[in-house]
């Protein structure tokens, strides 16, 4: 299963490297969101520091919606998904492969976002392991649910509006937990970041399992 999944991941990443949509369009959009938050919060550095962890995850979610739509577009345009299914790769492998592909793209975007945010918002990190672990777990929750919801919202003619309505509530607890964990890691809130990591792990595992079990049912009609 994982060999097939890795083939799907490589295919998605190769398409991204050739089309450069991640670098040319989605990454600038990520930076634009941060700059707009700076304007909206009145250029007050202390406020930006306090709200930085939340802004980071809200920006990540907004960017994730674009990345998910892009990931689905790759398969639905020219009925590429039909050929992928005819290749004999199981739906579970396709799901795992696309989730890993999305995961890698989101991690790259988050790394960029993190560096820019630390510079622009003048943030100092007090707990690097917590930042890394909470980002790794939360991104799994985002990519596993995003891959599933992307295909659920596709082919209905209302994907652009339906996807956020379905996807954002699912990830709301993850955003809360990740924001608290980042807040603790930045020394901005009085919360036990590692405790919130428990919630994040449960969400990531549950969504990944549900995705693996149900993706095939949805894929049949895409």
């Amino acid at each position, binding site marked *: 299963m994982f060999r097939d999944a890795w083939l799907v991941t490589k295919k998605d990443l190769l398409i991204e490297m050739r089309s450069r949509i991640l670098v040319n369009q989605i990454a600038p959009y990520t930076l634009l969101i941060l700059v707009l938050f700076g304007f909206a919060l009145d250029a007050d550095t202390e406020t930006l520091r306090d709200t930085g962890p939340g802004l980071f995850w809200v920006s990540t979610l907004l960017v994730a919606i674009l990345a998910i739509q892009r990931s689905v577009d790759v398969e639905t345009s020219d009925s590429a998904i039909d050929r992928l299914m005819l290749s004999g790769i199981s739906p579970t492998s396709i799901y795992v492969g696309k989730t890993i592909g999305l995961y890698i793209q989101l991690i790259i975007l988050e790394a960029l976002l993190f560096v820019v945010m630390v510079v622009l918002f003048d943030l100092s990190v007090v707990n690097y392991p917590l930042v890394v672990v909470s980002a790794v777990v939360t991104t799994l929750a985002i990519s596993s649910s995003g891959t599933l919801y992307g295909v659920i919202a596709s082919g*209905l003619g209302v994907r652009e509006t339906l996807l956020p309505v379905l996807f*954002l509530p699912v990830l*709301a607890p993850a955003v809360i937990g990740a924001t608290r964990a980042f807040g603790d890691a930045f020394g901005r809130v009085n*919360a036990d970041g590692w405790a*919130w990591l428990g919630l994040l792990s449960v969400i990531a595992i549950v969504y990944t399992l549900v995705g693996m079990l149900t993706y095939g*049912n949805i894929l049949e009609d895409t």
Partner: protein
Amino acid sequence: MQRTEKQEFTTSRGTRFMGISLLLGLPTLLIFSFLLSPADDNMDDAVRLIYVHVPMAVFAYVAIIITGIGSVFYLWKKSRWWDTVAHASAEIGLIFCGLVLVTGSIWGRPTWNTWWEWGDVRLVTTLVLFLMILGYLALRQVPANPDLKAKRASVVGIIAAVNIPIVNRSVEWWENSTLHQKSSLTDGKLENLTLFTLFLGFIIVGISYLWLMTHRFRVGWLTAEIEIAGISGVIEERLNEGNFGDGNSSYQQEDEVQ
């Protein structure tokens, strides 16, 4: 109005019995809640809200679990019956979930001194559950093939249902992140009349759920039958024009069997 066909109505002897029980039970619950049961030492008169808040929270969870079970069975059996059960239960679950949030906020103001607490995991996850069901129903309203829509809504329904344990157990998992006290029933603090009134609340809210569920299920079933009849009529018309093959929706197949 003369009753010509049984399927044209959502009423039955069972729903009439439940309706009459509610007509008698609701005033009784109000009398017990506001007049007969005592005020609480800590919560004062705000305790009266728990007679509807707690049962509604439980039945909101029940409704969403039934949506999840219906969704699993729909994906497994491809049965319109289970799909209609899932859809009907989600609508009632949304109403109950909304009422839980409203009554919880009203109760929280005098008890916790706040309408809303963002750090409380149970509150926030209940809101998230509410929003997830809103998304489920939004997907249900998209104009698309009923089979396709049912299949996708089933996956969303399953995710909403598996979210319930996160909501319900969160207060125990992250006790330092909530204002909720432990379950009033299991810690043995409720006694006599208070406990009886809460028990009565459970019965009344339970009957409300069953009554609403039965009617909504029958409305959903009839709506689907009308849609299928409409689609079948158009398909038949086109087939007669061009003399082509047969439609093979599982909804149509099930209709033919019946």
